[in-house]
């Protein structure tokens, strides 16, 4: 039997009243990836991740995570760890209380792992969570999500509110957890820089729609920057975005040799993401859009 996909979305749609947060999204992501979900604020990233962990239900379409409905039952909840935006914790609980909570509520809880991680990031178990810094709180939330040894870790903008040093520490901890657990992961960010260091699969989400999705290596191999008139591209080459006389195009293996002969340069991931975002926004890459992918 085929192993179920990490994420499988079919015409997935979520509306809040008349506002569409996600529109007819199709996704099929295999296991074993660290998936980066990028897009501007308000693109629908949080909605997609909250659907994936079962906090909300789709308006229409379906989404399956590791082969079943999100949060279908206790066993499925145990297989997915979620770190929510702003990394909520109980302010009146100490760190030790949080670890006890994890042990009480998760049969698969790895006490030793949790203790070791808390010690490794230099947190005092007796400290109240309400007095932690943003970076410390994020580390605590990450530890709680990971110590139940899930097969999939989901992070909703985990590093958005952190200073650069805390962000670096958090991303390092995230990578360490993913490799120690052998888990897959999905993390969203409006900063490409967070994502490109750790992800090997990329999903670009703008205006409630998926713009492009695929393994990073494949995306880089199939996108190029070329000079010349976008109107005269050979068949099989799709122009994503044109700016300053240069086009970013998506091609396929058949035309790649021809494209290479036409002064094609490999596109960077940043250029690629920016091109898709610009196309979705329907404008020249405005200062705002550039800011969202700057390092």
């Amino acid at each position: 039997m085929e192993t179920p996909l990490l994420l499988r979305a079919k015409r997935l749609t979520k509306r809040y009243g008349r506002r569409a947060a996600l529109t007819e999204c199709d996704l099929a992501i295999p296991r074993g990836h660290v998936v980066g979900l990028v897009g501007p604020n308000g693109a629908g990233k949080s909605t997609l991740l909250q659907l994936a962990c079962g906090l909300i239900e789709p308006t229409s379409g379906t989404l399956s995570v590791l082969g079943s409905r999100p949060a279908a039952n206790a066993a499925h909840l145990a297989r997915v760890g979620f770190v929510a935006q702003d990394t909520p914790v109980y302010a009146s609980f100490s760190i030790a209380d949080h670890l006890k909570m994890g042990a009480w509520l998760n049969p698969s809880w790895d006490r030793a792992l949790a203790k070791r991680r808390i010690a490794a990031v230099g947190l005092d178990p007796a400290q109240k969570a309400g007095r932690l810094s943003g970076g410390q709180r994020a580390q605590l939330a990450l530890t709680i999500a990971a110590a139940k040894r899930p097969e999939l870790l989901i992070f909703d903008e985990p590093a958005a509110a952190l200073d650069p040093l805390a962000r670096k520490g958090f991303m390092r901890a995230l990578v360490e957890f993913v490799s120690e657990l052998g888990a897959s992961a999905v993390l969203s960010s409006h900063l490409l820089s967070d994502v490109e260091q750790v992800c090997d699969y990329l999903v670009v989400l703008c205006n409630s729609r998926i713009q492009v999705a695929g393994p990073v290596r494949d995306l880089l191999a199939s996108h190029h920057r070329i000079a010349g008139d976008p109107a005269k591209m050979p068949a099989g080459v799709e122009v994503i975005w044109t700016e300053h006389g240069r086009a970013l195009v998506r091609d396929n293996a058949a035309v790649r040799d021809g494209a290479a002969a036409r002064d094609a340069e490999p596109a960077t991931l940043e250029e690629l993401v920016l091109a898709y975002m610009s196309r979705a926004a329907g404008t020249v890459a405005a200062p705002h859009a550039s800011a969202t992918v700057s390092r």
Partner: protein
Amino acid sequence: MIRMILRQFRIQALVAAILVILAAIYLVHLGRDVSAARDTSQLPSQYGQTMLFLAAGFGLVPALIGAFWGAPLIARELETGTHRLAWNQSVPRRRWLAVKLTVLGLASMAVAGTLSALLTWAAAPVDQVAGDRFSTILFGARGIAPIGYAAFGFTSGAVTGLLVRRTLPAMALVFLAVIAAQFVVPNLLRPHYMPPERVTVPMSADTINQARMLGSITGGPVVGGLEIPDAWVAYTSKLLTSDGRQLSDAAFNECFNNAPKTGATGKFGEIAVCLGKLDLHVDMAYQPNRRFWLFQWIELALYLGFSALLAAVGLWRIQHRVS
């Protein structure tokens, strides 16, 4: 799961425990004083006011449980965002809510049951002499009905918190709603749990003098506060003449203002004598005292049933319509 609930609940539990212990100490003292009284016939006049006061105060217990135990239960999680942490542990959120409602609902019922048992015991000698434990206010502060009020207060608090999603508005809303229920149910529902017994009472001057009030306010002359021995009076008609029609205001005012001097000494003096000669009567509906426990069970079942309904709404809502 239960350890988590107790850990989250410990400050509210501690405050409640202190209040319950203080109330219990007071009630035990009161009960000893009451049972030490030598002349039991004096008990109603001695303790009647206290008992009414206690019953009214006791009516706040379910409202307080609803506001301080029920309302924050889910609303605070939603407000601080910690539901996103709690509901991603390996406990489906419907079970999370079901266990919370059960454990803390039973705790609420235990608190109300304990206080009610103590109050019922302390008041028993007074009730026995006064025979008024079936009356509108005292009924709700005796026996087992308060257990139902507490369950209702708690569940309505929890579910309101889930719907309103903000702690303070939910607390205020629930407090008012529970108080309102305690006015609505005794006055509108309780008289109809069973068909009342009916009786026609002739209005002799003596009978009129036993009433608490007499007057013509809106819609015809009335006599108020007439009692029937060993019964809770649920309804008293206006003053009726022998042909069953309402006494006219003119006839009433004639007696009220120009009653012939007879030197009568009753509560309403010459007015009572004058009205007594008009061959008046009232129709009354009442629930006899022997139905007291039956009514207690009916009221308990009513409130528990409504609590279960609210819990079902909450369990549906938390699965499908949160965030």
